Each structure stands twice: as C-alpha cells, then as structure tokens.
C-alpha cells in the first residue's frame, strides 16, 4: 500500500519536472525566434543614472 503511494508520488514529481523542463524549453525557443524577428528594429535606448555630482547639481 505504502510503496504504491510512493510510486504514485514519484510519478507526480517526475511529471512535474518533465512539464517544467518542457515549458522552459518551449519558452527559450520562442524567445529566440522573437529575437530573430526583432533584430531589424531600433535598439532600446538605455539611460544610466547620472554620476552623483551631476545629479546633485540638477537638484
């Protein structure tokens, strides 16, 4: 009885792990495909926080 329950729980854990691995695999493939298609677009501009003395002068 207990061993049956253990096997069932192990099977659930295995399904959970395989499901998560599959999800992350699909997501990574999708994000790579998205990156391929978005290469032509303008790159996002990033503005770093100004050095502290500059920020103080602005205030």
């Amino acid at each position, binding site marked *: 009885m207990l061993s049956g329950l253990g096997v069932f729980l192990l099977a659930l854990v295995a*399904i*959970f792990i395989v*499901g998560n691995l599959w*999800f992350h695999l*699909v997501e990574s493939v999708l994000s790579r495909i998205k990156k391929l298609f978005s290469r032509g677009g303008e790159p996002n*501009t*990033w*503005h770093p*926080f100004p050095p502290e003395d500059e920020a103080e002068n602005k*205030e």
Partner: protein
Amino acid sequence: MGIFGKLFKGPEVDMEKSRANAEKMRVLFDQVVENGDRYRLIFGYTEDVSRFNYGLVHGSKTKIGDLIVGWNEEDQTIVVVPTVPDLSGCGDPTYYRRDQILKAYRNKYPTEAFIIYPDKSGYIGINAYDWLDDESLYVYVSQEEELAAFTDFFMKRFVKK
C-alpha cells in the same frame, strides 16, 4: 513594544531608503522627459505572465517590468519610463495623452491594474501598490499618498471608454 508586538506588526518601511529611491526616480524621470518636473511620480510595474497546461502539469512564469509612472493633471497625460529595481538607469519614455488613446480603465480581476490601450494593437497594464518589500523585483519606495493621488486622477480624469 514587546517582542510579540514587533512580530505581529509585520515589516516596517525604511523611510530613508524610500526617500532616497523617490529622489532617484525623479532624477531618472527628469533626465528623459521634457519638463519632467511638471509630473508627479509613482512606481509601478507590468506583469508578463506565460501560462502552461499539459493536463496534470500546469503553472505560470511571470516576468516583472519596473516602471516610473508620471502624470500631469493639466495635460491629462501619463508618461511611463521603464527602469530596474536598483534604479541604475531607465529606458525611453512612452506618452499616453488622454485625447490620443483608445481607452483607459481600472481592472478588477486578477489585479487592480491601471489599463491603457493606446490603440487596438496593444495595451499596458500598470500595477501599483503603497509599498512592495521585495527589492530584487521592485523599487523600494513607500508611496501611499502619491498612489492615492494617481488613483484619483486616473479614475476621475483619465478613464476613457
């Protein structure tokens, strides 16, 4: 206050850290938005949720995008600037002028997000709370008063159906 009193009181906001972050948000915002000082600011975030369901196995993965949200009551404009939890930088601003957007409303479920549709092709959902403790995901800032003012502005002057 005794030990139990402190335990039951829950986490307290570090106001000094909160003020410092509010100032950094202002510096970043003013750096990329013209006449940024005419806008009031809150911190908000977007959630990008991917769901999966393989029968027995289902779940979700959420990506958080931090935002500095500015609003100007006179111009009825909301400006959204993407940033990161440590406020080390920010992206380009996106402007949502009420007379140029398709619709705007406040969501009820699953979260009380502020939803703006600039056009038919997409939307932005802005989530905002008084304070969020997780510094790895969110900007550490206490904003009870500002959030109340933003909610009031959004519901009374920005909502569009």
